[in-house]
């Protein structure tokens, strides 16, 4: 498990390669890159600043990855989340999951992202033409995370 929280950018390809080589039994590497979009809720966004809670943030992410390891057969996982000031097109977050099989890799990767959005202490502030504003938590993100709670994965297509 590799977890990094910091201002440095990341190289998704290098992280994918590293996990692909984690073991010879790895047949599937699913990954996700989140980027700063240039618009949110109609306003043009110039830049955003991400704040975190040093210590608790890393711990929360480790717990989320640990939960994914309990639920799915995972060989290894990497999570990198940037903080500080980012601009449209910049990379924000990377999640990479390696597994023997693609179903496990995809589901664990999506699970980690959904939980990162709702459980890990990060806060986004956007700079728009009319000033700065803190981004409010979205009901759709809560719903995306909640779908994993109900009854495991029984109503998810497998």
């Amino acid at each position, binding site marked *: 498990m590799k977890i990094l929280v910091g201002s440095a950018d990341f190289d998704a390809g290098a992280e994918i390669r590293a996990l692909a080589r984690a073991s010879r039994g790895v047949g599937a590497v699913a990954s996700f890159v989140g980027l700063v979009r240039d618009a949110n809720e109609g306003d043009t966004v110039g830049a955003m600043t991400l704040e*975190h*809670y040093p210590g608790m943030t890393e711990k929360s992410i480790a717990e989320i990855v640990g939960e994914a390891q309990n639920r799915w057969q995972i060989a290894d996982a990497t999570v990198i989340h940037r903080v500080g000031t980012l601009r449209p097109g910049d990379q924000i*977050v990377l999640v990479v999951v390696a597994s023997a099989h693609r179903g496990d890799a995809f589901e664990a990767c999506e699970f980690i992202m959904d939980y990162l959005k709702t459980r890990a*202490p990060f*806060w986004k502030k956007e700079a728009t033409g009319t000033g700065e504003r803190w981004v*409010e*938590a979205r009901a759709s993100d809560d719903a995306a995370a909640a779908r994993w709670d109900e009854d495991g994965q029984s109503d998810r297509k497998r």
Partner: protein
Amino acid sequence: MKVRVLYFASLREKLGRDLEEVELAEGATVAGLLALLRARGGAWAEALAEGRPVRAARNQDMAKPGTPLAAGDEVAFFPPVTGG
């Protein structure tokens, strides 16, 4: 007993503070600490008003209003998270 209190994001800005030490009665809970802070009035009463979506952590674990506190604890207050 003393606890360390941290504030993050919009809460930090509204309160104009990121860190302080607060003196509490033995056996105080997260809710008790919140009530004490709210009693300061002004921005404190407003930002921490009941019904506001304020989250709390005790020693870097999510906490509930009833979570008991101990001397030396690190308590953090912050808005719902918006990462990723």
